[in-house]
């Protein structure tokens, strides 16, 4: 079978609407330039995600004009994103105003948890969608209407694959993973780790109870994203969270 279009080599093909059939005898490794008189080939050379990328640029400009720092938090489900957000809002909220965009397939549970801390939150339900995109964030930002010189933390849909591909217009991407998920996550999901500006290794309070090889984890992260900063913390106990706050502080808009 032809590896490019799946057609069967040497057999009769009916790719196109013709009143005849033609025998390809596929000895080539592809191209299919038939030069049909009734068709013309148009070169597009266009990025598939061009529309999303353009919307992401608009978000970036919108945020920059208001001096808002937007951080995209990505992880698998259950890595502790919401718990980390709750603590961050409680402990950093006196310094800077924080609001949250929550992405989940269903429910408003996470937005309710965030609102309980006193921070404004908007929930985006993606339905069958597995990631937030730039258009969804644009809608979320308009609803949230965050104040100038504040921080917007975007909790992406729990998923270590899809969100990596979609630029939202954020200034930084943070990947959160937890010791209970196993040390091989960077090797299994290199695309996600490659997209990260910062990696947070969460639930370090559970290290005595799980078999987690930190050096193997760090080596995987280094291979996927040489030089990426990795911070170890526990959102539950608060151990190590000051490193995360310092990272955020270094990026805060000047008051």
């Amino acid at each position, binding site marked *: 079978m032809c590896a*490019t*279009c*799946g057609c069967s080599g040497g057999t009769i093909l009916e*790719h*196109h*609407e013709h009143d005849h059939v033609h025998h390809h005898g596929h000895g080539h490794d*592809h191209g*299919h330039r038939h030069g*049909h*008189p*009734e*068709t*013309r*080939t*148009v*070169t*597009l*050379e*266009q*990025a*598939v*995600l*061009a*529309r*999303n990328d353009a919307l992401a640029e608009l978000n970036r400009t919108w945020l920059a004009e208001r001096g808002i720092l937007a951080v995209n938090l990505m992880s698998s489900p259950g890595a502790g994103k919401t718990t980390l957000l709750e603590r961050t809002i409680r402990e950093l909220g006196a310094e800077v105003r924080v609001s949250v965009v929550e992405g989940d397939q269903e429910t408003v549970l996470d937005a309710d948890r965030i609102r309980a801390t006193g921070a404004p939150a908007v929930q985006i339900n993606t339905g069958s*969608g*597995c*990631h937030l*995109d730039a258009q969804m964030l644009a809608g979320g930002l308009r609803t949230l209407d965050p104040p100038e010189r504040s921080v917007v933390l975007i909790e992406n849909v729990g998923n270590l*694959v*899809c969100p*990596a*591909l*979609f630029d939202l217009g954020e200034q930084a991407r943070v990947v959160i993973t937890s010791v209970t998920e196993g040390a091989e996550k960077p*090797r299994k999901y*290199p*695309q996600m780790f*490659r997209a990260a500006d910062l990696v947070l290794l969460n639930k370090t309070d559970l290290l005595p109870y799980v078999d987690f090889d930190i050096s193997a984890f760090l080596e*995987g992260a*280094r*291979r*996927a994203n*040489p*030089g990426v900063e990795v911070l170890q913390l526990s959102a539950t106990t608060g151990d190590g969270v000051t490193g995360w706050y310092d990272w955020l502080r270094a990026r805060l808009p000047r008051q």
Partner: protein
Amino acid sequence: MHEMAITESVVQAICERMGDAPVRRVCLEIGTLSGVVADSVRFCFDLVSEGTTLEGASLEIVQPMGKARCRDCGAEFALDDLLELCPCGSANRELLAGEELRIREVEVMA
């Protein structure tokens, strides 16, 4: 499964660019390191293109292989996955190819 969203982006972009012209063939470039599964895009394409000017079009997918240049020793080498190191042992490499996600060309009724 982001391939459905990716395929929707492809169909939407082509419809915007080509207007009402019926499309007979679409050629995409999906690099082997792009994070997008070409077979899944093939699976989604017929579903997504139904009822559009792309309905019934054939889909060609070209898959450029990964290639990188080492920032430490300068060597260029093939990259089968994003974890592969330079033969010199360095992880500090710049990707030259393999991440493509592009609509290369379309064939439309004249």
